[in-house]
């Protein structure tokens, strides 16, 4: 595959990934497979590219205090446990079924997210209880696009933890960082503001992908031939995407995210039907 094309594909993947808090798999995996790269190798490369996107896109968000570090530490703990378990179970679960299941979950979640954003589905507020008592899911950030400080508090911590463990499990099984599911859980289940959910997802997906990468290293699926053009392309794309996200209004980000979500859901169903039969 030509260097320039790979660089361009990675730049687009990095841009979309950083803008929406997801990995670059939506763009990168289909392009790599279209050019004859084995699907398993493409998934392995996608896992590495998620780590690169996360490291490149997070610094601008961190400088503006968008992701909540305490909440990230709390959620990552469960997500990485899930990712390690998922990676260990790879091969024991049918990818065909898993892709179809995840595709439907993404599409249904997209619908629920759209309703929530229109103010039809906001859930009740619940304080942390039991083992999680004292775990504070609150924080604040300055929204430069709206010119105001937003104060927020996450809800449903127990359900959030269970879902995040599931996200880690899926990320470990399918490869990548589970970015799209992280955003959905942080936004839809735990009620974090869109920008916080997207930026926390960007920060966390790198470590989650790291948890599941062992499988691909162990089986020799990561090829260094692809790494340089991909990381270089990611650097350019994610740098621009992260800057744009910071300055966009929440409404616009939500619109873009819903479009990407729908595309990703359809792509997952297509992969389930055609690639992993």
């Amino acid at each position: 595959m030509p260097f320039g094309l790979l660089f361009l594909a990675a730049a687009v993947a990095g841009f979309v990934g950083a803008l929406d808090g997801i990995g670059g798999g939506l763009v990168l995996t289909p392009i790599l497979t279209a050019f004859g790269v084995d699907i398993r190798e493409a998934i392995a490369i996608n896992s590495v590219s998620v780590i690169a996107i996360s490291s490149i896109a997070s610094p601008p968000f961190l400088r503006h205090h968008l992701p909540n570090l305490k909440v990230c530490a709390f959620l990552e703990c469960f997500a990485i446990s899930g990712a390690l378990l998922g990676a260990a179970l790879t091969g024991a679960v049918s990818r065909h079924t898993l892709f179809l299941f995840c595709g439907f979950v993404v599409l249904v979640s997209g619908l629920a997210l759209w309703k929530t954003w229109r103010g039809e589905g906001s859930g009740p507020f619940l304080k942390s209880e039991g083992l999680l008592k004292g775990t504070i899911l609150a924080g604040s950030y300055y929204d430069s696009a709206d010119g105001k400080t937003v104060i927020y508090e996450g809800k449903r911590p127990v359900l959030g933890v269970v879902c995040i463990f599931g996200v880690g499990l899926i990320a470990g099984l399918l490869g990548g960082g589970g970015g799209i599911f992280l955003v959905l859980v942080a936004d839809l289940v735990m009620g974090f503001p869109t920008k916080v959910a997207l930026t926390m997802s960007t920060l966390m997906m790198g470590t989650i992908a790291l948890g599941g990468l062992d499988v691909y290293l162990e089986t020799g699926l990561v090829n260094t031939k692809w790494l340089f053009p991909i990381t270089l392309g990611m650097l350019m794309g994610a740098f621009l995407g992260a800057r744009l996200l910071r300055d966009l209004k929440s409404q616009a980000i939500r619109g873009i995210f819903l479009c990407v979500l729908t595309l990703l859901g359809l792509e997952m169903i297509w992969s389930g039907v055609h690639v992993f039969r």
Partner: protein
Amino acid sequence: MKDVNRVRWLSKFDMEPLLGFILTAGMLISIGLMASSWAIAQLITRTNPGDKIRASSIPQLLQADLHRFGSPDFWVRFLADLGFSVLLITPYSRLVVTWLYLGFIKHRWRYAVYASIILVLLGIDLFSDFVLVPGFNYPALQRFFSR
């Protein structure tokens, strides 16, 4: 007075820009190493710039490279693998600094415990050959990836 200044500095310490710097520096070093490997392969040795990485931990990967010292493509392989290792260590370093910050500067022990669990799990995964969840793991993997 010295203690007062120290406490004042710690209370004003802003962690997020430091984490951003660690991630940026790690990525730039990683890309620099990969670019060096690619340039050597293209301009000097005229060898294949890439190869499949097969290792169960970062030390094992680099150790395998060092055993090949003296071979014509040593620097191409070593720099590429070193760049890849830095790429993997970068988010881990971010977690180490977060753990230090939450535990020793903010004294938020609950969150420091959460962060230390992540560090231990990923540390075993990245730096040792120990298999975290044995049993299912490798026979199933071999079947899946040899299809």
